């Protein structure tokens, strides 16, 4: 048998030949040092081509694609979050200012809505309802935390904790919002 052409040898190594042909080539490779050496080289090439060294793509690819395809989601979400946080912040401070055991603000809002008419009265009613809900939530949380800690949390402690948390929360949201706004402007 003559020495193997390159393609035939590779076909044999890839298992692309039938049993008869493979058998003939196997016999030839045992007696032909030249073809044997070429076989070894191809085997090594095949081995080193498997599992190539891959580069890590930059993270910016995914970030850019997501920003292009979902542009509004994060921006408007952060705007809504900022509005909600500002409202929570305002209510918290009103709550602290009026003392958390006193609902005089709600009473005052209700009286005002009675003395006015039209859409202003309705608006005040809505505000007072929201405040009532927030008040009720604060009272529930306050009672629950007091029960858990087995102490009566006084106004000073509550004010301190709520103030600190509010500031941190608000600062984080403003930071997030400004970053998103800058990205949007770019």
């Amino acid at each position, binding site marked *: 048998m003559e020495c193997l052409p*390159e*393609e035939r040898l*590779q*076909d044999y190594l890839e298992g*692309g030949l039938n049993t008869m042909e493979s058998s003939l080539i196997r016999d030839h490779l045992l007696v032909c040092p030249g073809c044997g050496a*070429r076989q*070894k*080289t*191809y085997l*090594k*090439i*095949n081995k*080193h*081509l*498997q599992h*190539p*060294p*891959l*580069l*890590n*793509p*930059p993270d*910016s*690819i*995914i970030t*850019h*694609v*997501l920003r*292009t*395809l*979902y542009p509004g*989601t994060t921006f408007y979400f952060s705007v809504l979050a900022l509005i909600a946080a500002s409202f929570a912040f305002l209510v918290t401070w009103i709550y602290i200012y009026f003392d958390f055991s006193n609902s005089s603000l709600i009473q005052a809002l209700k009286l005002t809505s009675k003395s006015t008419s039209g859409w202003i009265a309705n608006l005040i009613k809505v505000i007072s309802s929201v405040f009532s809900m927030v008040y009720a939530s604060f009272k529930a949380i306050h009672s629950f935390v007091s029960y858990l800690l087995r102490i009566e949390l006084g106004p000073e402690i509550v004010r301190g904790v709520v103030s600190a948390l509010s500031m941190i929360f608000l600062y984080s949201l403003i930071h997030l919002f400004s970053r998103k706004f800058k990205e949007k402007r770019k």
Partner: protein
Amino acid sequence: MKTFPVEKRKIILDDDQVLIKKIRKGNKAAFEELMRKYNRKIFNFVIRMVRNDEVAVELTQDFFIKIYTVIDKYNFEYKFSTWAYRICYNLVIDHIRKNQIQIESLDNDTVSQKEIVSSENYVKDVGFRILSDEEVKTHLWKLVDGIPLKFREVILLRYIQELKYEEIADISGLPVGTVKNRIFKAKEMLKQEIEKDGMLT
């Protein structure tokens, strides 16, 4: 004559197809997961095809955007990866055709003429010590970067995307026999190059 209702063929969805269902419903996290899964292979395929970092980043981004925009056209009877690689391949080939002059000038060189992948230079750099498997692999892949595009593309599809001959033929639009011949020819080129420095001996 009695007629029987035609039974709908049930397709068992693989992981990619489950993600696609979610993406079609607007699930952003699912699309991000799909991108993270394919990002590395696609980027490596593209960068080795165009041999330019910035262009590779842009084309990879374009690929994912394209996938997203045509995701509704994907047919669940076919493998997602083959469909996606075909889109990627066409995108890269289109880019190369548009920038024909630069690519041709690179591909007109033979492997050994390129200083960057010269085996002789490599041997000079590392001296005569025995190379580790990793070093040989790295060097061999540098040589792959230097072979002409029509041979390089099939090697990349075969070994980076880990595709079968039939799949490569499907993606590139070439007959299976041509794909096979090009891969063999590419390996022959690599063999000739590495025999010069006795790197694999």
